[in-house]
């Protein structure tokens, strides 16, 4: 009984989830740091940041919104949103002048996938931080 009430009190959200999710978006693992989950936050930061940096080092091109047929719209808007999900990593690289053109080559292709993958993994981290902040998960 005492354990059940202790678990329930741990699951009650103690703060608003909005700053947690915003910080989790801007800094991978930042939401977990704010919620004092330092180990998990550190691993998320390491994984997403290294993946993003590998994408930059492979000279992967960023996606830009592009109109056209349905498949083109889905790929380019989706890719842009996934790149954007990288948060400050994305903004910093763009502000510092990273503008890799889309050229042929498997390394460039993998680079683009690493950049998109890092953003998508950061979305998973944001959802995890939101679940912790709202008490759905400890």
């Amino acid at each position: 009984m005492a354990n059940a009430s202790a678990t329930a009190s741990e699951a009650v959200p103690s703060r608003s989830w909005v700053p947690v999710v915003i910080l989790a978006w801007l800094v991978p693992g930042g939401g977990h740091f704010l919620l004092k989950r330092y180990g998990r936050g550190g691993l998320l930061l390491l994984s997403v940041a290294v993946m993003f940096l590998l994408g930059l080092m492979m000279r992967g091109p960023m996606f830009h919104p592009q109109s056209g047929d349905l498949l083109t719209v889905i790929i380019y808007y989706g890719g842009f949103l996934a790149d954007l999900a990288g948060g400050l990593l994305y903004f910093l690289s763009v502000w510092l002048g990273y503008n890799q053109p889309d050229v042929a080559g498997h390394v460039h292709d993998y680079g683009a996938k690493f950049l998109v993958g890092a953003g998508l993994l950061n979305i998973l981290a944001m959802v995890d931080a939101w679940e912790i902040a709202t008490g759905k998960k400890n």
Partner: protein
Amino acid sequence: MPKLSVTHLEATLLFALFSSIVLGIVTRKTDHERLRYGIRCFAYFVVALFAVGWVMYLAHG
């Protein structure tokens, strides 16, 4: 920033490694379960990598 050149195998293994770490962290509740799930995810990635690689090789002729 240095330019990195990787093979298909290196790139996919790196992708699998970091994806598995994040998937392990966000989908399980205890550290032990996270470690097990992360390792299992990585194994699935590697199996799928070789399976799809062979399918493409055989389909290509």
